[in-house]
């Protein structure tokens, strides 16, 4: 427990202080954003085994809900963050029946739901509500420093959530469900309730993260916040580090996103080849992520 808390505090501290030493704040913000999303994936996939390919749907819903509550309702950006999270949870509630599916069926249905959300938001007939395909300009609330601080706080919340799940009865129940749903039920675990909690927690993190992203980036289009790349990156980062751990997604995001950025800048012509080889190597030799390597060597990963 102490080790996990220390790891979380160190990570939050790293990002809180990093802008003092490194001026590309957007890069740091993006790294944090993916880290929060990777932990959101971790909450769902790591603890229950449901892999949400359409996770970006919650992110986009949060981004739009947050931005529109500033523009249409005149809320403060901080309150808008909360609205973003709440709307993502409401979307999660609507999509709860998807949890009846499993494996690839769940992943595909979840992806379809995210696409449906994208088409609803970008529908020109909803221009009065969402501004349709014409994008959002949130310049009126733009504040890079405050939105960066908000993302640091969200990172703390995401890490605290995972620490809690790692060391609570709820987390234990979820892991039991992941291993064998029927055995878990026989042991008295309320499978439907527990996995719904994990699903909504995961949606909440993505929604809050989307609203913070909207605040930070301030000008965006539906294709920006509903881009499938966001889901894929978060999933790959979580899996690369090792799901169901706190440190796995942290290491996965920092290493892979760092690599992604570094190669993309220094060797753009080799980027796809190198990044592709890293991913293939991961799938072939480390299917349980870097955390499994560490555990094989006798180090317990928090």
């Amino acid at each position, binding site marked *: 427990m102490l080790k996990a808390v220390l790891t979380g505090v160190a990570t939050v501290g790293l990002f809180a202080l990093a802008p003092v030493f490194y001026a590309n704040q957007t890069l740091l913000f993006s790294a944090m954003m993916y880290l929060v999303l990777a932990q959101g994936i971790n909450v769902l996939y790591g603890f229950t085994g449901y892999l949400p390919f359409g996770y970006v749907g919650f992110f986009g819903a949060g981004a739009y809900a947050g931005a529109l509550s500033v523009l249409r309702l005149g809320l403060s950006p901080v309150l808008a963050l909360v609205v973003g999270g709440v709307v993502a949870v409401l979307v999660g509630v609507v999509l709860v029946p998807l949890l009846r599916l499993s494996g690839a069926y769940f992943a595909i249905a979840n992806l379809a739901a995210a696409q449906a959300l994208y088409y609803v938001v970008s529908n020109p007939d909803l221009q009065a509500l969402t501004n349709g395909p014409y994008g959002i300009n949130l310049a009126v609330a733009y504040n890079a420093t405050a939105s960066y601080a908000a993302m640091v706080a969200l990172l703390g919340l995401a890490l605290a959530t995972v620490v809690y799940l790692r060391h609570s009865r709820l987390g234990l129940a979820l892991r039991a469900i992941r291993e064998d749903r029927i055995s878990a039920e026989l042991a008295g675990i309320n499978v439907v309730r527990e996995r719904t909690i994990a699903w909504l927690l995961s949606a909440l993190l993505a929604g809050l993260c989307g609203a913070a992203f909207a605040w930070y980036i301030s*000008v965006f289009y539906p294709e920006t916040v509903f881009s499938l790349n966001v889901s894929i990156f978060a999933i790959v980062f979580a899996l690369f580090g090792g799901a169901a751990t706190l440190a796995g997604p942290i290491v996965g995001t920092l290493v892979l996103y760092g690599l992604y950025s570094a190669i993309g800048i220094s060797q753009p012509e080799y980027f796809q080849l190198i990044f592709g080889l890293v991913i293939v190597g991961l799938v072939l030799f480390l299917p349980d992520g870097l955390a499994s390597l560490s555990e094989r060597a006798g180090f317990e990963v928090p």
Partner: protein
Amino acid sequence: MMRQKGLAGCVAIAALALIGLGPAAWAADAPAVLKLGTLYAGSGAFAVPSTSEHEGLKFWVDQVNAAGGTYVKALGRKVRLRLIAYNDRSSTTTAAPLYNQLITQDKVDILVSDFGSVLTSVAVPIAQTHKMLLFDPTGTGAALFSPDNPYVVLCSLPTSAIWPYALADFLKKFEPVRRVALLYATNDFTGSQAATLRERLRGSRVELVYDQGVATNTSNYAVLLHNVEAARPDAVIEFGYANNDIAFLQGLQASGLKFKMVFAIFPGQLFSLLRKNVSEAGLAYTYTYPTPPLLAYNKVNYGPGLEAFLREYRQKRGEDANFLTVAGYNTGLVIGKTLATADKLDQLALRRAVEQFSGKLFTLDGLFKVDRSGAQVGELLPVGQFLPSGNGVKMQVVFPFALATGKPVYPAP
């Protein structure tokens, strides 16, 4: 303890990977060379237009450096340019940190955005925060411009909402057209054009008998074409990205349907691409917005005329330039004119310089004129029609009548 050290090591290495992106040393007070930073999409959805546009900008930089640099009034001498370009792979979430990288790490003097509104959108607030003037070649979305942001200038296209002005006037004034069908992709670029057309046709003698938005990734127009045909329109206006236009025109050929008038955007912008995918026969009698090189601006007061540029580009690069190459090159010309006009090198001085020559600058891309928000309002797009010529097609401008080089062939045979 060992385990904690191992983990801390991993985090430290990862952090170094982030930090190791390379803070570049730069002396702001000794501009032996001016750094011009931009992004391009080497892969992904925007790769084709983005790389063409980037090639145009690169060509301008090469040309300037070959001539010993660009004249910088604030320094009273010519200064060579260094182009720093990163590949954003058509991703906005990748583009945002890269724009920031250009400003904070590479400390560029001039910032140029990538192709189109989506990849430009993330640059606008970043440039504004860092008080950098953003030279935007082709990001035409209305959301990018606001009167209280002086740090953006649209260089090579008008904002998308004003593109269909001439088209709407043509439809209203061209007697045989009374029933119009509108089919458009639901994105900012084409959705705003559809809204403008709808607005400008309202209350006229022209009736909109079909008005349908489709997803931008639509690749099969078979059913939609028959729906359009059922509305018996005199003119069919299809607004889409290049992939939409190709799918639409291919579908039209395959369906065997004939409309009296068909309009699409990209035959006039990416003629080679459309010719390759639709064939010249498929483009014959199609209406479009002709842009350079289909529309030749040779009477210019800055930079080469269009024909001279096309000749030199072909000679040096061994290939033909398309409109987006011209747009990238034209952005370079606007930058060159800005540097030659500004008394100081600070970013607001550059913006004031743009206002000084706005409305007076004629380049190979036409009149450069921006409004208070930095949006381009000078280049109005005429309406042209491809007509069969020998084994291919040729472009003739049909509206505005004052610019027309021929009369529209209507109905299409």
